């Protein structure tokens, strides 16, 4: 995908994420929207994958360690053809294959089960090490939340991945500045997250997480870095690019119905139409 196509893909991920959470009426919308652009870049062409063969052993892998962003990943996967679009209407319904948090046993294309925060860092490291042993050039991408970095396991993994020189691992930190109970700085001020990872020896970049060309360039820089893992801090907004969601103060897990759903859908549709119109 070129940049414009990737931007359209991101807009579709947002639209489908709002729509699927709207069917259920509630969900983790804020943190799903903030990773939509990075997901569009990854699934839009960076990752070496085959939607017809989700278990292809040599594929690149994604671990959405902030597992509550599952709905955004499901949107990307459905749009890529991993499973029918109408599965998105089943989010969190009885018997669904799309649970609130990512589950690799249930969903084609989900590479790791997540939901207990911090754990995806270690499992992504394990996946990347397995790929390195296989020496076929496959990569693992990892997404963690800024609030998730409260978890000590994130830093255990940061030390280990650096010690191992795990250069096929690229981590994105969704620095959307909010967690469940409020602002990240109010709860545990993480300071400069990029500086922290840099001090752990990682190749570190800090970019506008809503700027698709910037994300593409950062991923290229990650691929170019040898002998070290890369951390890309995505400076984002919780609820990104859907202003009626951005404006909600506590927007980690929200009711998405009625007027809010209508407004969010129309904003997503308008954004998509503007991009497609300009294509």
């Amino acid at each position: 995908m070129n940049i414009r196509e990737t931007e359209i893909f991101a807009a579709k991920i947002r639209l489908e994420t709002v729509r699927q959470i709207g069917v259920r009426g509630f969900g983790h919308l804020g943190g799903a929207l903030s990773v939509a652009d990075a997901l569009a870049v990854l699934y839009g062409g960076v990752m070496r994958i085959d939607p017809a063969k989700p278990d292809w052993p040599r594929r690149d892998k994604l671990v959405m360690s902030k597992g509550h962003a599952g709905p955004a990943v499901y949107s990307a996967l459905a749009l890529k053809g991993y499973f029918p679009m109408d599965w998105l209407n089943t989010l969190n319904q009885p018997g669904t294959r799309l649970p609130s948090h990512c589950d690799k046993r249930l969903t084609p294309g989900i590479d790791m089960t997540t939901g207990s925060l911090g754990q995806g860092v270690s499992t992504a490291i394990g996946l990347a090490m397995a790929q390195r042993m296989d020496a076929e050039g496959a990569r693992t991408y990892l997404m963690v939340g800024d609030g998730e970095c409260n978890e000590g396991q994130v830093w255990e993994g940061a030390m280990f991945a650096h010690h191992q020189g795990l250069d096929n691992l690229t981590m994105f930190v969704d620095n959307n500045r909010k967690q469940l109970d409020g602002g990240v700085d109010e709860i545990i001020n993480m300071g400069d997250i990029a500086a922290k990872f840099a001090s752990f020896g990682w190749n570190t970049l800090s970019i506008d997480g809503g700027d698709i060309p910037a994300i593409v360039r950062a991923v290229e820089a990650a691929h170019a870095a040898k002998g070290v893992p890369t951390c890309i801090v995505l400076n984002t907004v919780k609820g990104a690019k859907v202003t009626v969601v951005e404006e909600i103060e506590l927007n980690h897990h929200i009711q998405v119905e009625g007027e809010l759903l209508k407004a969010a859908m129309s904003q997503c549709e308008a954004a998509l139409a503007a991009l497609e119109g300009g294509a």
Partner: protein
Amino acid sequence: MAVIYDGTPEKRVYKNIFGETMEAIAAADDQVVYLDADLMNSIGTLGFWKRNPRQAINCGIAEANMMGIAAGLSAGGKKPYAHTFGIFASRRCFDQVFISAAYAGNSVRIFGSDPGVTAGFNGGTHMPFEDMALMRAVPGSTVIEVSDAAMLADIMWQVKDREGLTYVRVTRKNYPALYSGNHEFTIGRGQVVREGKDAAVIACGLMVGEAMAAAETLKGEGIDLRVVDMFTVKPIDRELAVRTASETGVVLTAENHNIIGGLGDSVADVLLSEGVRTKFRKLGVQDQFGSVGPQPYLQEFYGLTAAKIAEAIKSML
């Protein structure tokens, strides 16, 4: 294939057997990865790590991270083995074991060393009396307590291709030798180590040898004690548990573990569910924390001795 028990301790300590077996397994299968959390020198794998850093990974003092890495390696097609002390393997990183490994459908082999009182001088903080209870509660798990050196090596090979979460509880020291080197073990099938008709002890780990010693004492008093090594605590050998109780009518379980959630509860569940009429009692740690001291002192303190087994059996007859 034979039971060779005569009360003499195994000549070699288990940590050396663990180390050489782990290295041999890795040499035989390049998909095997051994992980440790800075306890390689304690379990005999330091040389293996130096010789083969591709397949032996030191994760440092970070057990939660290690268990997650093991899970990721499994998801990436590898066959991870992870070792640390039993307390750290269970209590310290239970959620990582539960979610990243088991819930996520990965196959991870966890070896928890220093079971119960064998932690000795490391004391109460290092003394797992609840590791089997925790691991039993993980859906689909396999829980094994090794009682013998030949069993240790055999089980280490057997679990290599086993699906799901497997927890193996193993001492670094030694117990009395029970089985010949070519003895065959089947996971999920207990071993009758000594036949007997008057009463039975169903034991695991350290307590199998203690039960054998108790049987010798009781023999002198005209009591014919059966000893069962129920080394697979989960899935328990239901048929053997039922047969043992039906044929003897007196069953004592013996474990170097809290009586809550371990072997005794597992056997009791089978016997009650199957409607077997039997006398039944659990010998083990009575809902206590660990403490420090030489192992013989701790065995006395918690009542984990042949004498206590003999006493319990006599009181049940």
